[in-house]
């Protein structure tokens, strides 16, 4: 079987298109590359959507935490503490079994027990909490002069937020937020390892890597392949976030711009 054939068969295996049975024996390097790569579809899906939705909730959480009104501040603080204070691993497990219990209450919760929705919600809340904390930190360090200038111009309420507070907050938070994004993509590898079952063997990259490692008893091939894909993904994220960073800082002179410093974290 040629490699092209393998790619046709297994390239979209993770979303259920192509050959139904996974390779059983005579594993080729091509098969491993293709299947693990196909699993990356899920990692990208989870990361992308959690990040997109999490961004807005994170802004709301940061504003809530910085609010002087206890009604807004307390829930935001608790939400952030809840998701930052406990392991993501446990959150996945708990969410899965919670949804499983709710399922017997009402069929509305049926899709929640599937990874595509249930795990996405956990990741969404999780990244919202982490980014919320980052944004809150940035909100605290907005230069006093900026807000005073806004006041002097007579900006207030929504206009003040939209024009001054929010862009400055993003600008200050962006390097840390880039780390959070990379970290989130790494965290997506946990999904099929915790509670959420891979239906019809449609799993993410780590699921397939683990499958190969189990079958071949040789971890030295699939895991480096996985690492390769993740490094590639990380580089893409860095490039995209770098573009946004350049745009956010476009009004600043070249040498004052904050440099992107990568500080990869390990486990959330």
């Amino acid at each position, binding site marked *: 079987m040629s490699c092209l054939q393998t790619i046709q068969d297994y390239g979209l295996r993770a979303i259920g298109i192509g050959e139904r049975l996974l390779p059983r024996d005579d594993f080729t390097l091509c098969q491993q590359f293709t299947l693990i790569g196909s699993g990356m579809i899920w990692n990208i899906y989870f990361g992308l959507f959690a990040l997109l939705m999490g961004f807005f909730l994170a802004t709301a959480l940061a504003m809530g935490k910085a609010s002087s009104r206890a009604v807004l501040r307390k829930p935001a603080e608790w939400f952030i503490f809840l998701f930052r204070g406990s392991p993501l691993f446990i959150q996945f497990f708990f969410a899965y079994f919670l949804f499983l219990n709710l399922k017997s209450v009402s069929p509305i919760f049926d899709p929640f027990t599937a990874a595509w929705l249930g795990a996405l919600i956990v990741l969404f809340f999780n990244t919202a909490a982490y980014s919320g904390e980052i944004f809150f930190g940035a909100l605290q360090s907005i230069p006093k002069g900026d807000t005073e200038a806004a006041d002097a111009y007579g900006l207030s309420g929504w206009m003040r937020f939209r024009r001054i507070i929010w862009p400055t907050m993003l600008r200050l938070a962006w390097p840390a937020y880039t780390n959070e994004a990379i970290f989130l993509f790494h965290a997506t590898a946990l999904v099929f390892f915790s509670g959420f079952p891979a239906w019809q063997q449609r799993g993410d990259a780590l699921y397939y890597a683990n499958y190969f*490692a189990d079958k071949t008893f040789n971890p030295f091939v699939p895991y480096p392949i996985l690492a390769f894909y993740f490094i590639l993904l990380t580089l893409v994220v860095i490039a995209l976030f770098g573009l946004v960073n350049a745009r956010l800082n476009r009004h600043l002179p070249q040498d004052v711009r904050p440099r992107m410093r990568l500080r990869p974290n390990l486990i959330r």
Partner: protein
Amino acid sequence: MACYLTTGKHMSIYFSVITVLVLLAITAPIALLFGFGGASAARSQIAPLRWFGKGYIAVVRGVPDIAFFLFFVIALDQGIEYLRHKVLCPDWSEPIRQGNDFVVCQAAKMPLGSAPQWVHETYGFALAVLTFAIVFGAFAANVLFGAMRAVPRAQLETAEAYGMTQRQTFWRVLVPQMWVYALPGLSNLWMVLIKATPLLFLLGVEDIVYWARELGGTKTPRFTDYPHGDWRMWYFLALLVFYLLFTRVSEVVLARIMARLTHGQATAAGEAQRKAAVA
């Protein structure tokens, strides 16, 4: 209810909580030691040692998260068995890698096949500790490296002016002063380490996640070992609360240590403390 929660199996889950705490208690100092070694190596005068230190920090930090854990334990295990095989069975003719299988002679099995169960468990635990220590050591090394550079240059110059040797400067001036700069990073690392403990489950140690799944679940709907339905949700809720409490306590304790370390330091917080004491 109270009686049910103290059955033999439930005792194992309480015991596994202790396992997690022991893991943290052992790993944290070892990782710190690795970190200290790595950081000192990275700023060494001797080039190969410096490369080694920097390489260690860069490689371990660059590799994505849990894949490392999954990979490392098997790699360590096979590495140890391979070395033992080379030493113990020199006249073994067959290749070790036979296609997909990893075959070593009986005497090189680690632990020995005839060893009692607890040896296997302890060995698995030790491997887990080593993996955690190596990974977190790299992170700690990075933090300490940064902290060593953050100590004001003037302090070191003063020490040199007093005629201290490099070694004396390092131990008497640099090391005592770096902790205040290192602590925010280290406490962050400690939080991450706490949250990394459920990964023990992935490493095959029967930890709290294992027991929560085991005890909460019903084996089959009709023939169940446990007199209740699917309680895994409640067991995991308990775990969630356990971790949240643990994090909270750590936060409070670390804040106290920070306050103590800041005392008399040439930092903004130290200055604030001094002013507060004067006023």
